């Protein structure tokens, strides 16, 4: 079970609480987790990654276990603590703008 924590506006869109739990087949990677997230909550498609290129939106970042994973390959394995459900994967919106 992978835990994913979403920023407030995405929780509103998906009509979920602070955290969602996902079953991801195989070794969890960022790409695999986001694929499952978007499949279960299609209203989030395009809001985290571009529909076509799958590039991360510029003002969002991914963190886990106090590490910034945003610039890592989306195919890298996520930390063991995330894979085991001990720690959540954090989707974070930049604190910017007005």
């Amino acid at each position: 079970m992978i835990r994913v924590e979403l920023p407030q506006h995405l929780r509103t869109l998906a009509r979920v609480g602070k955290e969602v739990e996902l079953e991801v087949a195989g070794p969890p990677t960022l790409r695999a987790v986001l694929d499952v997230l978007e499949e279960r909550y299609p209203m989030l498609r395009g809001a985290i990654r571009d529909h076509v290129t799958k590039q991360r939106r510029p003002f969002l970042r991914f963190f886990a276990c106090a590490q910034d994973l945003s610039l890592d390959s989306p195919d890298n394995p996520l930390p063991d603590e995330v894979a085991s459900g001990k720690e959540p994967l954090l989707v974070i919106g930049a604190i910017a703008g007005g």
Partner: protein
Amino acid sequence: MSRVRVLVGTRKGAFILTADGKRQKWDVSGPHFAGWEIYHVKGSKADPERLYVSQTSGWFGQIIQRSDDGGKTWHQPGTPPGEPTTAPDGSPKGESNKFVYDTSAETGKPLTTHMFYDGTQHPWEFKRVWHVEPSLTDPDTVYAGVEDAALFRSSDGGKSWQEMSGLRGHGTGPKWQPGAGGMGLHTILLDPTNANRMYIAISAAGAFRTDDAGKTWKPINKGLVSQYIPDPNAEVGHCVHRIAMNGSRPNTLFMQKHWDVLRSDDAGENWKEVSGNLPTDFGFVIDVHAHEPETIYVVPIKSDSEHFPLEGKLRVYRSKTGGNTWEALTNGLPQRDCYVNVLRDAMAVDSLDDCGIYFGTTGGQVYVSPDAGDSWAPIVRDLPSVLSVEVQTLA
């Protein structure tokens, strides 16, 4: 008794303002979609309870919202609340925020670049929906004008969108250039007497018309003169801010260009300036009285960088002669220390017998005149900066 529903898009959410036909006592609902930029909210003439919303964010991109009950509840088309979000085969039921430019060979001339600010060619990149325009006859058909400029259409109530690529592909696309606010397709006018005819306008490309329901398009900018571009009389490249039409006379169009107010009486084939005695002919909004097709309204704004009313006086100007001769309307509007702007989608008219005029400001006020401009009053004073105003006249 008839009533009105005013749909307001702001930088931090949408608001719905309702009143009876007297338009004196208002109820305010909102903010809907708090914290998001709401570029536009518009209702369907075919089903007034059907509303479409363009909800955008620099963080999370484009969202389309829909209401089927006049704004009481909302959902993203294709993903109604409480229902499964995937089809039985596991595929998503809706991708209502997927705006992908058509580059298929089948559609003829896929374009990949337009002119950038510095004159170089730049890839087309979807940024947001500026304007949603429901079909006049089918609540499930709706058009979207987007930045970077293109026209999209949905025929399934906003669940999916397809580009009407004949517009970008008609030939002048590489000459289109963004204005200071981006390269947005901001105006979509549907001819109520001819389902095949549609007008659109783009900053800074100009006005375009289709006579075959969007398959092919032609620039309609003859008579526009823009001194700030290399060829002031160019076929495209003009910063058209807004076009308006009275549906009873669909061949007559009125335009607020960056500078100049113009009219055309031949469906945009030729334009002539009607700025007349306006104190400045820069501005963004223009609209036409619902019952008097020669009565038009603008809000002159000081250009080029200040973008607020002249002398700190907020004045709507009305012409009852289709332009050239204008009168200032000031009764009820601030006449000192007012430095707001009125953006291009932020004026609307209702169709009650005494035509109501509405506009919103970047200072968060929405004003109404229930007597065609003779007197004004604020409906609300302290909303976030207003991006768009539409009004529905309801039975």
